[in-house]
Every structure is written in structure tokens, then in C-alpha cells.
């Protein structure tokens, strides 16, 4: 006995599809005992109608014609279960996204919905009850990335008693936030609020911190990931190094200063910054004299702890995790190639916003005094250019970086605080100050700190008599603008961090067209990646400021805790199964399975057959296609079900238009 329920979805469906007519047609189909049109099937009364029909009419299977199963299949399965039916005796027909929303002709849409309904009714007749399996989940989480997002997620998960491994590719955790001077809109010191959290990560009994490490490979599935972690060789024994910095002081080889965004210089062996966690040195072989044909071994000689080991090799650790949090953050857009009119990096006094943060910071290369890179002079006229590599179709970057307006306003304020007789100019297109207290902060930058906001994009920057001439426009005054500046700061847009795409492939999750990792639903599932068991925290999912990042990371942690707290996961029963009597033992299935879910087995008579490990199978169906004798089928997608569906849509009076194997 089949129950057929069609949802009006308010007017989303009923405006184009005559649901009453479809219900009437369904009522006449073989085996259909009830056919009803419901205003909102997913609502409480809607679900109650279904439950009543199941009990009252002794239904044993149900077809629901409504929205996409991605939206509400789980909802309706639970409704069936509550009414005493096996939850897998449900078939959903998508007549919203695939019918009412995309058609305008009501009679044609109604006809198509009826066709889809027939196909589903034909299929549901062959449904068999399935049982969800429980699989054990490893009670340990992997957090990839040690910026504020990773730190927050790791601390939150660890606080729930679940062990965490944090992997950070650079020598210290802290990420971009550790490089910022002050934070908007409160102007509290970035490293002062971050450093205690960094230390807590290091000291937390539930957190294992692996710096100089990267995720090499990921196998397995939600609850049982196997991850290879590559620990890079830094020639320093982490256990022995005390962070005394003697090696850094004495090292004769200069190297670029990554932490200071390329301003100033560092040494081949160095500690990234004074508050680094862990406070250990690391050696960059590409800049070290010893690894470039010289005999120098000064650091080894001078190290009081004997921590230097030139022969240290890379190691790959394999660990098991139940869940993975990607918290890889962002990089600033490399503007040079795309903005020839801003000098392509030829003018030393055109700096990026991140470099300016380092010039403002007391731990930066100038000790917190603003100095121009070219001659070390203190600038008086400082020009900020917003939206460099943001909202610019001509360089292929239409997106808003979402933080540029605010960090530029902050930097303008700090400029006046550092140099009271300076004047800051901000070229902007729109002031986007949507956060709490942000608008008030931006106003203060204008009224209290005298920042001159100029609405217009800068056309050109060129040097003249030791200054930089900034050619722009003031669309509000309706005139061209020319500023003789001492220093120009470019508010560069944000990119997903380097290597995020590669990591996404390893995690089997998607990235959007701007390179940021994609969440499963933009509103309702903002921290879940499309791959089960993988979660996103912070700017790897899209540009975010610090408060949004912390909130996002906390949400990801809550999802991990919810998943791992019970120690076992409910796995979908829609996995492949082998009919052993038909299996020829060719093991083509084993060859094509991307998850290694097929094993070789022997029947008592010695005949080799394939066997599917249910807990490893992800239900992709590739083996079904590969199997020559058709011995493997996918629960819930059996050949019988699919053929019934196809036969139904191919009936002469139905037509080919709605051929849909969904």
C-alpha cells in the first residue's frame, strides 16, 4: 500500500504545478491507497498527516513529491520512522527545483510532475527495508592550520575532552593574526589577545601540536580517517631547543623575513617572532651556507643545548582521526602583476597593508615607528588605496574582501596616533562597515582622527622628486585629485591560502571560483564541507574578520564534538552488496573501488568471490557498473528499482521529455 503526498510548498510549487490534479492522477496509480496535496509537507501538521495515513491506511511505503531530497529527505525518513515504518521505504520526487521553479507553463509543468510521480511510484514498489549501520569513530580530531581559527577550534574541541592534533606548516602557530598590530574596532593589541591562546594550545593536555608539518595524504571516511602528516626537516631537535636565539644572533646567512611580510631581513636559522609558539628555531636549508657549498657549522658549534642536527630527515607520521577541521586561512593577494599603474612593486614606498601592519607593530622591523622603506624617513602624507585586487573585474576578482574598509580605517587612525601631524587619505569605493561598532569606528576615523576619505579609485601612482604622486578622483567633489604622498598603502584583497586547493582535493571537498573551500549550505550548514566528517573553520571558507572567524571556528568545533561525543556514527545502509551466487571472482570491482571497500573472499567450496566491507563503502555505485555478471548492486539503487523507473518513463503515452534517473 503506497501513500502519495504532494507538497504545495506555499506557492513555490502550487503556482506552477496543479498539485490537486497530480494527486488525483496518483490516486489512480496501481497500489496507491492515499494521495494528498499538502500546503507545507515538512511542517509539523504536514508530517502528522503522513503519520496518520501510514497508521490509518496501513501504508508500507511512501512517495513524497516536494523539494530536493538534499533538503528534506532526512526529515521525511524520520517522519516514517516515527510512524513505525522503515525510514528507507521512502521515495522523494523533486518537483520544485526540477519542475516548478524552472518552468512557467502550468499545464506542461503539471504534466511533468505527474510523469515524475508515476516513475517514483513504480520505483517505490521495489523498495526493501534497510537498516542503518553503526560504525565506531576514532575519538581524535585533526585541525589543519594554526591561525586564530585553528587555535579556537582546537581549544574548543580539546575542552570537551576530545584529543586534537594540530598541524601547522610554518614554524609557529598564530597565523596572520599574530602579524597584526591592533584590531578594529576596539584597537586592542592583536598579539596580546592571541598570545595567551597560543600558549594554551601548546600546554593543553589534549592537544598535540605539530609545527613545520603538512598533510600529505588523507584516506578513509568520516569517523575513520587515516592521515599521513609530513614533518619537514628543520635541522633542529624540537625537544632540545630552548629558544635562546644564540643561533639566530650568530648565523651569518641573511634570509627573507616571511613574518614581516618581506620587510627587513632574517637569518637562515631563526625563530619566526619573539612570541612564537613553540619557541624553537628552525633552519631554512635554501638560505643556509652549509647547505650551499660552504663549511659553516656555526649554529651547531654555538648551540648550548646541542639541538642542531644537519642530518635530520623528513618523517611521515600516520594518524587516525574521526573528524578533520580545515582552518587554513588566507593569504593577501599578490597585486604586483595585475596593477602596472601602481608600479608593479618597483617603488619601495608603495607597501601592502600587511607590510604596513608590520611597520606599525612594536615587534616589527622598525620597532613600531612608521618609516618609509626607501629612506627610513617618517612619512607625513600617507595615502591608503582600497580594493586592490577586490571588486575589480578587470583582474578577474569581483569579490569584496570584506575586511579592507575596516582595517584601512584602523590603519589610518593608527597613522595619526603614531605621527600626530600626519594626514591620512583613504581612497574608497564604498565604506563597508557592517559589524558591531564598525560604522561608529569608521566615523571616528573621520571626525576624531582627521582621516580624509575620498570616494574614487586611484588611477596611477608614480614617483616625483622623492615623493609618490597619487592620481585619483573625488567623485563627491566632482574633481580630479592629485596627492604628493610620502607613503602609499595598498589594501590588497584576500585569497585562500597557498595550497588550499591541493588540500581540498586530498580532503575530497570543493572550492569556489575564488579558491575558498565550499560549505555544504551557505546558510544552514556553514561549517560542514561536502565530505562527511570534514569541517571548515575561518577564512578558508571565505574572507572573515577575527570575530567572525572565532565564531565560525567555534561552530566547527561544536560539530566535531557532536559527531565524536558518542564514539560511534550512523552509517548509511545504501552501500554495495554482492550476490555471491552470481559473482565470477573477476575482481573488476576491487580495481575500480576508490575507497578500497572490496575484499577477496572464498566460499566454502573454494570459489573466490568479492565481498564489500560495509563500513568502508561509500555507496558511489562504480562497482555496479563495472561488474560483468551484474552481481553487485547498491542497496536502495537496485537494478530492479532503476529498471522499473525507466520502463515507466518510457511508456509510449508518457513521452521522453521527463527522462530523469534521479
Amino acid at each position, binding site marked *: 500500500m503506497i501513500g502519495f503526498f504532494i507538497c504545495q510548498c506555499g506557492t513555490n510549487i502550487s503556482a506552477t504545478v496543479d498539485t490537486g490534479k497530480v494527486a488525483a492522477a496518483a490516486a489512480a496509480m496501481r497500489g496507491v491507497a492515499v494521495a494528498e496535496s499538502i500546503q507545507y509537507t515538512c511542517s509539523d501538521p504536514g508530517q502528522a498527516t503522513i503519520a496518520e495515513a501510514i497508521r490509518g491506511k496501513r501504508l508500507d511505503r511512501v512517495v513524497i513529491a516536494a523539494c530536493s531530497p538534499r533538503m528534506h529527505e532526512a526529515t521525511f525518513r524520520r517522519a516514517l520512522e516515527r510512524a513505525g515504518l522503515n525510514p528507507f521505504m521512502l521515495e522523494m520526487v523533486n518537483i520544485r527545483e526540477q519542475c516548478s521553479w524552472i518552468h512557467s507553463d502550468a499545464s506542461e509543468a503539471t504534466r511533468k510532475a505527474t510523469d515524475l510521480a508515476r516513475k517514483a511510484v513504480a520505483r517505490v514498489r521495489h523498495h526493501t527495508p534497510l537498516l542503518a549501520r553503526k560504525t565506531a569513530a576514532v575519538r581524535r580530531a585533526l585541525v589543519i592550520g594554526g591561525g586564530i581559527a585553528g587555535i579556537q577550534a582546537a581549544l574548543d574541541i580539546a575542552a570537551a575532552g576530545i584529543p586534537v592534533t594540530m598541524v601547522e606548516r610554518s614554524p609557529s602557530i598564530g597565523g596572520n593574526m599574530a602579524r597584526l598590530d591592533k584590531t578594529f574596532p576596539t584597537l586592542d593589541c592583536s598579539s596580546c589577545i592571541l598570545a595567551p591562546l597560543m600558549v594554551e594550545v601548546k600546554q593543553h593536555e589534549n592537544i598535540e601540536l605539530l609545527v613545520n608539518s603538512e598533510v600529505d595524504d588523507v584516506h578513509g571516511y568520516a569517523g575513520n580517517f587515516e592521515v599521513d602528516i609530513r614533518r619537514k626537516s628543520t635541522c633542529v631537535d624540537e625537544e632540545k631547543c630552548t629558544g635562546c636565539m644564540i643561533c639566530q644572533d650568530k648565523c651569518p646567512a641573511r634570509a627573507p623575513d616571511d613574518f614581516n611580510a618581506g620587510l627587513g631581513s632574517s637569518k637562515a636559522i631563526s625563530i619566526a617572532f619573539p612570541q612564537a609558539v613553540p619557541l624553537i628555531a628552525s633552519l631554512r636549508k635554501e638560505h643556509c651556507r652549509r647547505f650551499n657549498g660552504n663549511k659553516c657549522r656555526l649554529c651547531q658549534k654555538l648551540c648550548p643545548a646541542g639541538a642542531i642536527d644537519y642530518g635530520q630527515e623528513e618523517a611521515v607520521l600516520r594518524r587516525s582521526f574521526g573528524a578533520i577541521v580545515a582552518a587554513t586561512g588566507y593569504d593577501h593577494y599578490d597585486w604586483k602583476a595585475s596593477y602596472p599603474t601602481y608600479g608593479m612593486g618597483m617603488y619601495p614606498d608603495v607597501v601592502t597593508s600587511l607590510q604596513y601592519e608590520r611597520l606599525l607593530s612594536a615587534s616589527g622591523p622598525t620597532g613600531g615607528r612608521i618609516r618609509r622603506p626607501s629612506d627610513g624617513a617618517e612619512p*607625513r*602624507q600617507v595615502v591608503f588605496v582600497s580594493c586592490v585586487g577586490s571588486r575589480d573585474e578587470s583582474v578577474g576578482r569581483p569579490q569584496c574582501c570584506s575586511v579592507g574598509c575596516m582595517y584601512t580605517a584602523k590603519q589610518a587612525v593608527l597613522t595619526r596616533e603614531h605621527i600626530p601631524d600626519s*594626514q591620512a*587619505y583613504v581612497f574608497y569605493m564604498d565604506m563597508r562597515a557592517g559589524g558591531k561598532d564598525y560604522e561608529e569606528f569608521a*566615523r571616528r576615523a*573621520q*571626525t576624531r582622527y*582627521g582621516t*580624509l576619505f*575620498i*570616494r574614487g579609485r586611484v588611477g596611477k601612482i608614480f614617483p616625483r622628486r622623492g615623493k609618490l604622486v597619487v592620481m585619483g578622483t*573625488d567623485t*563627491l*567633489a*566632482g*574633481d*580630479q*585629485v*592629485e*596627492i*604628493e604622498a610620502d607613503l602609499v598603502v595598498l589594501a590588497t584583497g584576500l585569497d585562500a591560502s597557498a595550497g588550499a586547493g591541493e588540500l581540498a582535493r586530498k580532503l575530497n571537498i570543493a572550492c569556489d571560483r575564488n579558491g575558498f573551500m565550499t560549505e555544504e549550505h551557505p546558510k544552514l550548514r556553514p561549517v560542514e564541507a561536502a565530505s562527511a566528517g570534514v569541517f571548515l573553520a575561518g577564512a578558508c571558507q571565505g574572507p572573515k574578520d577575527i570575530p567572525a572567524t572565532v565564531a565560525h571556528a567555534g561552530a566547527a568545533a561544536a560539530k566535531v564534538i557532536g559527531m565524536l561525543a558518542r564514539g560511534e556514527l550512523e552509517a548509511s545502509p545504501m552501500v554495495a552488496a554482492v550476490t555471491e551466487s552470481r559473482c565470477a571472482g573477476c575482481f573488476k570491482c576491487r580495481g575500480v573501488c576508490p575507497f578500497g571497500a572490496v575484499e577477496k573472499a572464498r566460499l566454502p567450496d573454494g570459489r573466490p568471490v568479492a565481498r564489500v566491507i560495509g563500513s568502508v563503502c561509500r555507496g558511489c555505485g562504480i562497482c555496479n557498473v563495472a561488474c560483468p555478471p551484474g552481481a553487485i548492486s547498491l542497496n536502495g539503487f537496485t537494478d530492479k528499482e532503476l529498471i522499473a523507473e525507466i520502463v515507466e518513463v518510457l511508456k509510449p503515452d508518457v513521452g521522453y521529455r521527463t527522462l530523469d534517473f534521479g
Partner: protein
Amino acid sequence: MIRFPESMSAGAALLAEIERRSGQQVSACYQCGRCTSTCVAAFAFDYPPHTLMRLLQVGMVREVLASRAAQLCLDCMTCSTRCPMEIDVAGVIETAKLVADEAGLKDTERDLRLLRRAFLSNVRRHGRLHEASLLIWFNFRTHNFMNDIKLVPLVLRKKNFHIFPPRIKNRRQMLRIFQEINRGGKG
């Protein structure tokens, strides 16, 4: 072409004077344009009110002082009433008129300037307006001696044209009001 920092330094002293006497902070304007949206006289202006504010912000104070707009402003105060940042826009423009007079900028709307000055000094002297003396003084200053002469019999017949100035009760108080405003207090 607006040149920085020259523009800012050139306008700094006059802007500070306008801000002090009007009691307003010009940098608070965020250019929403509501003043212009409500202005009843903007159709005759060379710059709409919000642009006057912007010109002051970027240091182009002289353009504002020399503008027709500043002279044609009716002081109806609608802009000040409606400004979301509670800036007294009309007050800023009125102050700009006074500063322009003091700075000796006399080219724009000369007659209008003369009339306004004549009007104010007339009120100051008599405590209220005395049309006859205003008219004579204004026509004399603008060298239009015979202007409106044909209307004289008409207004005399209607008996609302007073040859002698009116007397008000407390002229001292009126004088104090003028002194207060000239000191740059908040009117």
C-alpha cells in the same frame, strides 16, 4: 584638480574659522546628500549643498565662499533639520557668507550681498525692518536711483509704507543679539 596636501593647508585657516563660528564639524558629513534632497533653492545653486560640504572637507574653502550657492541660500534651515548627522548645514553656509564678506570676496551676487548687509544693518538700527530707508539705501548703493519709483504712489495709498522708522520697546536687547552672533556664539 584638487592637490593634496596644498589644498588642505590652503583652506585650513578659513575652515577652522567657519567651524569655530558655526560650532559645526564639517568632517562629520558623510555625503548622504539628504540636505540636497530637501533643498528648495538648490535649483539655482552652482553647487548643491552636499557638494558645498564636500568642498569644505577637501580644503576648497574659497570655492565655497565665492559660490553663488552660498549667497542664494535662503536660510530656511530645512537641511539642518533633516541632516542625519545633526550638522547645522544652513549654519555652516551662513557662516561662510559672513566669512566671505570679511575676506573681502565681493564678486559673486554683489547685489544680493549688499541687500543682505543692508537688511541686517537696518534691523540692527531700528530693531525691526524699515522698508523705506532700506530701499533708498539699497538703490543708492546699486546706482538704481529710479528703481521701483513707480510703485511709490501705490504703496503710499495702501498705507503700509512708513516714512519714519518704527520704534521697538527694547532696542538694547536687539543689539545684544547682534553682538552675540558676531562673537561667534551659538545664535
